[in-house]
């Protein structure tokens, strides 16, 4: 299993600014970078706010959002998902701020039923590889 290098998806390499994002996920929380001074949400995260240069911190978000756009991946181009084709990746626009987007897998739905505007909610999944948790999204009205 572990001998096949294609079996694992690319693992994130947290840095000094992104580490709290991954630490929160490990605790089952989705947290995004936010300016402590002006309240602007920042993705990708920054040490200082790009608008007011205030200090930033990671703040839990509701985990709900809307599919802004999506693809259905049919061809193996990234390792880790070769046995799981086709899969859906969306840019999920989080409810906290217009234009605040996270790329994420959409689960629990037929790819043909995914559409722009679909309401989704975050849930947590272990990233194959062992060390990280990721947030995937599922349509709010599906179980």
């Amino acid at each position: 299993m572990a001998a096949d290098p294609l079996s694992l998806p690319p693992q994130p390499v947290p840095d000094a600014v992104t580490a709290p994002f991954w630490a929160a996920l490990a605790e089952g929380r989705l947290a995004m970078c936010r300016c402590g001074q002006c309240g602007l949400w920042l993705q990708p995260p920054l040490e200082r706010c790009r608008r007011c240069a205030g200090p930033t911190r990671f703040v839990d978000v509701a985990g709900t959002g809307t599919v802004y756009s999506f693809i259905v991946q049919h061809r193996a181009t990234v390792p880790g998902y070769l046995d799981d084709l086709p899969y859906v990746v969306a840019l999920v626009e989080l409810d906290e701020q217009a234009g605040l987007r996270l790329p994420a897998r959409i689960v629990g739905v037929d790819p043909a039923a995914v559409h722009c505007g679909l309401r989704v909610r975050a849930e947590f999944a272990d990233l194959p590889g062992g060390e990280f948790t990721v947030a995937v999204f599922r349509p709010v009205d599906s179980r």
Partner: protein
Amino acid sequence: MSHALAGAAVVGIGRSPFVRSSGRTTLSMAAQAAREALADCGLTAADVDGFTCYSTGDSAGPSQVAHAIGVDDLGWSLSVLGGGNIVTSTVAGAAAAVLSGQAEVVVVYRVLGSQTRYGRALERVEVDGEGQFAGPHGYLVPPQWFAMYCRRHQYEYGSTAADLGAIAVQERDHAVRNPHAVARSPITLDDYLNSRWISEPFRLFDCCYEIDGAVAIVVTSAERAADLPHRPVHLLGAADSNRFGGSVDQWDDLSCMYSRDTAPRLWSRTGLRPADIDVACMYDCFTFTVMATFEDFGFCAKGEVGDYFRAGRATYGGDVVVNPHGGLLSEGYIHGLNHHYEAVLQLRGDAGDRQVSGAETALVTSGAGPFGGALVYGTAAL
């Protein structure tokens, strides 16, 4: 001010063969293209004092290539980190170096070897930077990013697979007349629609043809160009735009691209309009890149690109000939510098079977998503 680049001209062009797998080093191919470009304009290594290239850290650098062709002392050497987004800045930067007296004759090149293939990332084990948010979800490479853009455009404007296919079919039809193109067999809309899905809504024929090869162009002053063998091709103006730190995912409106901001800047600087353009070498890493940027540059309204192409307006006898060489989709992907080669060939009147008759102006775009640029070449300075 607005015509500040018009004192510069492209006087020489060169390239290596374009092939799927060359077995050659980037240094060998870049040196070949540079030698050919100098021979094309009757100059030698002794005349060259500037060299620049753009790359993603995947190619022999300007000092190495200059040395390899016999340049002894390079006065201006600039290696730019970037891809399609940075082509215009690199070429305009070479012109600025000439016009500011930092160099007299500059070679601009891009080379791609077999180790560079952007469409797949099956060897990636780790991802840092912004990619760390996307890579773990199996979302990491350009066909995926721009399929995401395309989907949003389809949602907002009702563009279709047949619209994308019209672009792919037209470009391939152009490549049939280009002996240097890697893909020269004509395709039909059915061929397009039957090609396999890659990242839906992109099929195989939505994606450029990644190859090995090098292109080089020689930039010097218009004054010096007057004494060289070919009709000089003048740089009429250039513009770039960079937003969202280059984040493809955070760019505010995925139904358009950098060209939304670049186009008004370029038209303002040159005093030109889409109707003034004879040849449009549109950066086409994907069919949708052509669709979005073509709209942004004002050739037609949102959602009308498919009809425009189907009506024959983007080919010979139409309004503007788009990618007469077949573009990155069919001639091959040399990261957009082959668009500059083609533009120069067309404006010289040397494009043979695929010559656009009476071509006097060429738009060359570069980039996709949140950043990129464009410039205009002309047979006469503005």
